[in-house]
């Protein structure tokens, strides 16, 4: 079925829907990973975005039950060069089009994804509309221009859980009042701004007992839970409007060892007095080199962020990691307090496992506190 993808600047890409009819808008970004589309689809950090995969054959190995990062597909639409309809993999339980169709997410193929990617690289990330119903480029452009810009969007609230939960390969809701730590590891409260399940799995693997709490959880609630540490998760959108969360974080870090990944990293940065800015087209890849400054070691990292933190004026913080592609901040720690964070995704899902030592370091930080 013919479909159009129209950018807010009026650029038109023609393709075909492989999931039936629909119309949807969102910020369009590209991801250069050659594998891991199922993880990308279910990663809450992509909430509301239109994700374009640069590798041309997507859907090769279908989808399975295990490789999910949340309960459902989070992207608004999925754009590929060619969608493979018959998957081939021993773990595949269904095909990619089936998966998208079941969750009513628009899938677009036949797009010159390289041209789209270059356009975004040159002109920056932008809003776009996809439609099979309205094939008028002008009208789609107008609709795209009316979409709220990513900057200023507090999406973390939207995607966060409404109730605390334990993670046993999937969320098991509990109530604040009845909850008790089970001595399964170091008690850790995880703020859910759209947390990826890979993070929860690894926190558990590395020795934490995890309780996931809503983004709106207050400092008092955390205190009542009496954890050993707090973790701020990844998530979608702009960190700046998350003022309540930032305020809560400011209190938390005075009392608990705290770590953050991605949005959590940005929130920590802001809570400590740093500044946030939007990257031109973001980092969405599985191949970015990150240098750990203490050792000089280079880790190939999974990346997914559109914003970046500037902590250059905060001399009580130490830069621990930088991105070797553009020298942007990839991680910091507090010089005297147990606070650490990384911008990239040490949990992978998808991507390389090079940065997993993050979890061990966090565990040590908490255990030695």
């Amino acid at each position, binding site marked *: 079925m013919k479909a159009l993808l129209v950018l807010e600047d009026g650029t038109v890409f*023609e393709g075909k829907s492989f999931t039936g009819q629909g119309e949807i808008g969102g910020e369009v970004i*590209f991801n*250069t*990973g*050659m*594998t*891991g589309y*199922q*993880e990308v689809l279910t990663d809450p950090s992509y909430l509301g975005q239109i994700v374009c995969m*640069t*590798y*041309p*054959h997507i859907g*090769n*190995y279908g989808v*399975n039950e*295990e*490789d999910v990062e949340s309960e459902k597909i989070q992207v608004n639409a999925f754009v590929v*060069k*060619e969608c*493979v309809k*018959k*998957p*081939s*993999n*021993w*773990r595949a339980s269904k095909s990619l089009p089936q998966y998208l169709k079941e969750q009513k997410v628009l899938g677009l193929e036949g797009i*010159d*994804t*390289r*041209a789209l*990617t*270059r356009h975004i*690289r040159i002109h920056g990330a932008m809003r776009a509309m996809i439609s099979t119903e309205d094939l008028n480029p002008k009208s789609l452009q107008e609709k795209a221009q009316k979409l709220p810009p990513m900057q200023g969007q507090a999406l973390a609230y939207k995607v966060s859980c409404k109730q605390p939960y334990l993670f046993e390969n999937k969320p098991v809701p509990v109530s604040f009042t009845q909850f008790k730590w089970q001595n399964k590891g170091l008690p850790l409260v995880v703020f859910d701004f759209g947390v990826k399940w890979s993070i929860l799995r690894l926190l558990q693997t590395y020795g934490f007992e995890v309780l996931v709490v809503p983004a709106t959880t207050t400092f008092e609630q955390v205190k009542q839970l009496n954890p050993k540490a707090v973790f701020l998760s990844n998530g979608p959108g702009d960190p700046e409007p998350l003022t309540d969360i930032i305020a809560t974080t400011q209190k938390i870090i005075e009392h608990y060892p705290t770590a953050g990944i991605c949005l959590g990293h940005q929130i920590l940065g802001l809570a400590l007095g740093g500044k946030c800015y939007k990257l031109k087209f973001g980092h969405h*890849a*599985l*191949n*970015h*080199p990150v*240098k750990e400054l203490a050792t*000089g*070691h*280079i880790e*190939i990292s999974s990346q997914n962020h559109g914003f970046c933190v500037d902590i250059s004026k905060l001399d009580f913080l130490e830069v621990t990691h930088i991105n*070797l*592609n*553009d020298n942007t901040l990839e991680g910091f720690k507090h010089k005297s307090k147990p606070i650490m964070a990384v911008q990239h995704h040490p949990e*992978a*899902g*998808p*991507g*390389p*496992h090079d940065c997993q030592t993050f979890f061990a370091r966090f565990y040590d930080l908490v255990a030695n506190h």
Partner: protein
Amino acid sequence: MPKRTDLKKILVIGSGPIVIGQACEFDYSGTQAIKALKEEGYEVVLINSNPATIMTDPALADATYIEPIVPEIIAKIIAQEKPDALLPTLGGQTALNVSVALAEEGILEKYNVELIGASLEAIKKAESREEFKAAMAKIGLKVPKSGIARSLEDVIRLAEEIPFPIIVRPAFTLGGTGGGIAYNLEELKHIASQGLKASLKQEVMLEESVLHWKEFELEVMRDKKDNCVIICSIENLDPMGVHTGDSITVAPAQTLSDKEYQKMRDAAFAIMREIGVETGGSNVQFAINPQNGEMVVIEMNPRVSRSSALASKATGFPIAKIAAKLAVGYTLDEIPNDITKETVASFEPTIDYCVVKIPRFTFEKFPGSKDELNTAMKSVGETMAIGRTFKEALQKGFRSLEIGLAGFEDIETPPDIEELKSLIRNPNSKRLLYLKQALKVISQEEIYQLTGIDPWFLDQIQELIDLEEKLKTLSWEEFKANKELFQQAKAFGFSDKQLGKIFNLPEKEVRLARQKQELKPTYYLVDTCAAEFEAYTPYFYSTYEPGKEVAPLKEKKVVILGGGPNRIGQGIEFDYCCVHAAFALQEMGVKAIMVNSNPETVSTDYDTSDRLYFEPLTFEDVLNIIEFEQPDGVIVQFGGQTPLNLALSLLEAGVPILGTSPLSIDQAEDRELFKQLLNKLKLKQPANATAFSKEEALKIAEKIGYPVVVRPSYVLGGRAMEIVYDSEDLENYFQQAIWASPDHPILIDKFLENAIEIDVDALSDGEDTYIGGIMEHIEEAGVHSGDSACVLPPHTLSPELIAEIERQTKLLSQELKVVGLMNIQFAVKDKEVFILEVNPRASRTVPFVSKATGIPLAKLATKVMLGQKLKDLLPSTIHKPNYFAVKEAVLPFNRFPGVDVILGPEMRSTGEVMGIDANVGLAYLKSQLAAGQNLPLKGNVFISVNDKDKPMAVLPARIFQELGFKIIATRGTGRFLQEAGIPVEIVNKVYEGRPNAIDYIKNGQIDLLINTSSGKKTVQDSSSLRQTALLYGIPYTTTISAAKAMALAIKERLNADLQIKSLQEYYKQRGIN
């Protein structure tokens, strides 16, 4: 921490002659490495016996030794040059093996030479199957059940533990030579005994078969700070069971989810660390059970490889260059990424296209060998194609192969279903074509059961079939009016020619219709980053997408058409010429645009030219590029037959061809036109005529006089060419399915028996002609020039004859209006000069002549094609050389068991070596040594020759006897030699009883075998003898002329030790810098 400053001089070892399993990919990696080391200010000493390489260009290394790659010679070079380090990881298995030998013999220690890139321990751990298995167990990785056997007894014992089918893998061999799959004990014993012989260490590994498991390769790099990256993942379309060099492979891996891929990536890093490759690149192969994902490690190569060359071309990441920099102490983050300029080399390339590599086979040249693929590599070359999708890349790949296919076409005569099943079950060179047919008549599930080829690939092929079948239901008018469908067909990689075949139209008509619909390819970049960063790589592929990203070059520019996939008769020599053309253009300030489809080459290094189009060398693809770039000229005379085949059509399309007109090339190739030309110039050629029937052929042969050379006019490349000695022979020739008819005439030439064959490479600017080199062949006329050894300068020709040859060369060059290179083959018989062939284009010998003389012919040819004059280009005085250079051919017979090793008019060599020394004998001896024949200095020489050769066998036999060799001969030859007064021990022929000559070989009683035959009958008799010599690695020759050369060479060697000298030193004497 930047590069090491304690090292000043580094020795690099090349990979030697092109052989199956080790081709020009090592010239590519070696050249890159030398450039990288020089860039860092190191002094580089190079040894490589292969003169056809770019790496042996005198301008590249500081000291270039074209010498045999054997420990004793390298020891001499080390003693003379005193390098600080040896980099063994860039010259394939050859360099690795010889480096191990040098280390174990204590030579490196003696001269204090450090192995960099990979330590001795790491090499041994990776190469020895037993150690490797133990290492894998240590890091918790599985390998197939296996055991090491050092004898047939071991093999039988192990067969009780390992279930059949069992894979036999010899340790320390090239490309798995001598390996195979055994389904029963008898087969196992047979294959294992071959493997034991092929292995340098008499060691084979028997391995539980993981037949039909999915096969993957990862290219890994690691620096001294333990930073590891994967450059590329490769998935084999042909699953386990076919050597990866013979498999169709795809990059990146297609059917692994991220979880599975990351697991494999982790394993690859663990292997790197456990084996201990601290700096450089390695290749790790994995197999995956398609039913449950179980992963096993197959092998690891602690060096750059064929796959790493492919990975470099597939991603744009220069593995060999980076490996060289890591070896001298850099870390990945200290090396800039040339492509993005702003990022560093410590990242993992990501690609937004699909790459397909297809091997090229030459079974037709080896009648008697089975077209069967297994774990021993058979292919002689490969082509790579880039498309946005697998479908597009696969089609481009098939048309790049140059085997008469315009794409992934249908086979002409489909076999019945049962045969079809067998043809797809038993891997062979045409399996995918049969598979396409099978998909039309057999269920996908059954095909999967038979082949193990992943359903993903089967589906992709099915999509191609579906579209093709849809097109077949349409009329041309309907199709050409349907732009969307036309566009889809092009995006699916259908070539104009292929569409023409579907609609029964000439290619040009399809092209016109396509252009009318404004369907043109766009050119996209290979940029390592899927467009995430701005890239500066001048490396492109075509695809049918709406986007536009590249603009034509603005400056003066010339397109060079490359040679496509390597094959016998067209290989690295032509790539050498193309690369020199690029260098020459750059020296002149003209932009060089390279078009080629061979991933192994230096020409497809994006660093070589100003722009690289990685494209099939077809009329359509080439003309598209020319129409897009609008170059000032196109060079067709360097890439061998491939671009020449396009020359006339390109000329017709108005393309400015540089240098000699394609019409002249045609004139020299057309038999009649050429005859007229020679008559006009009063030059002689052997009597010849064309026959349109068998009867006519017999009559003509009678008139011309036997022996004659016969060949079908419609078969190219010396195929089915034969020398016949009488009418019975000729009748036989026709019986072997060779027919003559008005459509298929037979060409008959007088065969000049025992004539000396001469090759001349010359260079002309339209006014002056420079004789680049006159080469005198060792083997007599009748042996394909590509397969015979030759000496430069000629060692037996009188000055008068040389002058006459020069005169004729100049005359022909003028008449054909040659601007550029020209090659002429002469035969000299009884002091008379005959012309056999003239080719006004680059020949296979251009690099040899250039290396032997110090004058870079191809580079100068390029400059004269652009209007410069020879008198301004050549040094004013060149002294006569005080040395001789001998080129020897290297033949792949050990890959084709059962094929007789005799030389004939059909070329079968894959590569060449050069021996250079003060006299002919030593130069010849070196050429033999470099080609793998270590001529004995004492012992027993076995001689068995046909009647015709007997009188001429006396001379070499006498020399051997005088040198102290014992002569052993079969009865007939022996009696003849005894009558000539040479003492001989007579031995039985194979059918005469025991002990016979083969027993002697097996017992190690023969050190050199001289065995000639002519005519079908004697060939059959003596074939098993030669086979045995080949198997036991005994030096042998099948011509008397070579036997004589060997005798004289050994005589010289007994008088003087081999000396080594760099090319730069040789040239100094001649006054060339």
